């Protein structure tokens, strides 16, 4: 493309790299930003830099954390015997909204997807196995998305963890197939958590 003057094109290119932002939206957002008062633009830029500097991955569950551990891993009242495995930190929010779950989490930071070159070795799978060995985990709930990649990841993990003698359950019943956990409404997801099946 490269139709605009230097810095404008750089901005459009950078925005276009964001997930879900096509070239047209990138252009629209760029021109919106250019019209903003300088202090508004600076606030946005600062918030990105600030978040990037202060937020990192929880060293235990790979959720986002300020400091070593995330708020769920720091919370002593949570049941460490049950670990809910999700793809992304935003999925934790979805599970929390149900107010049904009092265990801990493990964030894979993705799902198996050969098309995108993502295999199990690119996910936090090894770290999950280490946790299972080190913490007294009794049940693993596989709450990956109910789409092809999420199902494949859940199957892969079940094949890996079941031989270790743990209870492995999958929440899926009632969840819309092909959907994202993030978009499942609280009631459906809550029921699914209740009615999780052993795999």
């Amino acid at each position: 493309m490269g139709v605009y003057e230097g810095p404008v094109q750089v901005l459009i290119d950078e925005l276009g790299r964001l997930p879900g932002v096509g070239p047209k939206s990138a252009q629209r957002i760029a021109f919106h930003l250019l019209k903003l008062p300088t202090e508004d633009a600076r606030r946005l830029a600062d918030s990105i830099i600030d978040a990037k500097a202060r937020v990192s991955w929880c060293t235990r569950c790979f959720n986002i954390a300020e400091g070593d551990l995330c708020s769920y891993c720091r919370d002593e009242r949570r049941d460490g015997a049950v670990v809910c495995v999700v793809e992304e930190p935003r999925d934790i929010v979805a599970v929390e909204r149900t107010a049904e779950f009092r265990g801990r989490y493990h964030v894979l930071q993705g799902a198996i997807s050969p098309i995108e070159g993502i295999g199990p070795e690119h996910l936090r799978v090894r770290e999950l196995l280490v946790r299972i060995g080190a913490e007294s985990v009794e049940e693993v709930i596989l709450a990956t998305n109910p789409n092809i990649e999420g199902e494949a990841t859940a199957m892969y993990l079940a094949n890996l963890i079941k031989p270790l003698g743990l209870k492995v359950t999958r929440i899926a019943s009632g969840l819309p197939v092909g959907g994202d956990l993030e978009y499942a409404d609280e009631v459906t997801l809550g029921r699914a958590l209740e009615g999780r099946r052993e795999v």
Partner: protein
Amino acid sequence: MTAQAARVARLALTDFRCFTNVEVELGEGLTVLRGPNGQGKTSLLEGLAWPARARSIRGVPDAALVRAGADAAVVRCEIREGTRTQSFAAEIHATGRNRLQLNGNAITRHRDLFGVLRVTVFTPDDLELVKAGPALRREYLDELLEMLAPRYVAATSDFDRVLRQRNALLKSAAREGLDTTTLAVFDEQLVSAGGEVVRGRLQLLTRLVEPARDAMRALGEGDDIAFAYVAEWGGGELVLDDLDSVEDRLREGLETLRRRELERQMTLVGPHRDELRMRLSGLEARTQASQGEQRSLALALRLAGHSVVTELTDSAPVLLLDDVFSELDARRSAVLVGLLPSGQTLLTTATAVPSGVQPACELLVQDAKVGVA
């Protein structure tokens, strides 16, 4: 027949193909869209049918539907069935996600559109259904399945996705070595999604035979037709008795063909490899039937599909006939006119309609505008 018939009562297209803005009201019976070629008749059918499949009936990507220079094409329509009226709206983007609305509510999945509108489409290209390779015949079966139950909409799109993932995995195995644990997972997914598609096709095919025979007889052809569903991975022809063993056969096929799959870096087992073989009086319809017989068989396939969908869903699809009479001789045209089921029908033509056709309404489509003829 006591089936209901859904119909599109009103259609509005904005920045869709050649149309900047067009709005039409459509009646219940037969509407003839007349006008010179290349001025919007087929595009109007394409817009009307878009909600049925959430994609073009001409098999082109969404980008081709957006008028040059516009950001998005918009399809809005009102669909009436019995006493019920539903409103549908779609914003179709050349790149990025489309936005769909049903009765004012946003919908995110194709499956949520299930049953809102069904269409049966006849085009002059239908001859290819009989003459061309197996891909078009597989598509014919799958499009019918998707009209029959939401789970088939899910199964066909799931299978597609599994196939792409599995092929990517086989390709990467050539570069980085085979990860057998991950392949095992995609094998199992291929078996469950593929199994559902194969079982659906087998059951559908059994239902199609009789109505197809009826249509052939009415068209004055021999009615000695036979359909066979051939799956090479499953050892040849599959029949209705094989329904329960489809998954096992897929698993066996995967085992047998593993080496070849790894060599060729592609999935060789599954419904995407299958063939619907058709015989006329014992002869291969694809290669040994006359062009006239092939045309009749193509019409028979469309009519049979329409009748099976009408029977199983208790609702007749809207009939869209795009310029079909231009390719048919007078005799077959007359028979087709006589065979057309009742219900809303839209017919495009650049010339006169065959005798016997009695339109309830005629519209003139010219220069990307629609007017009363």
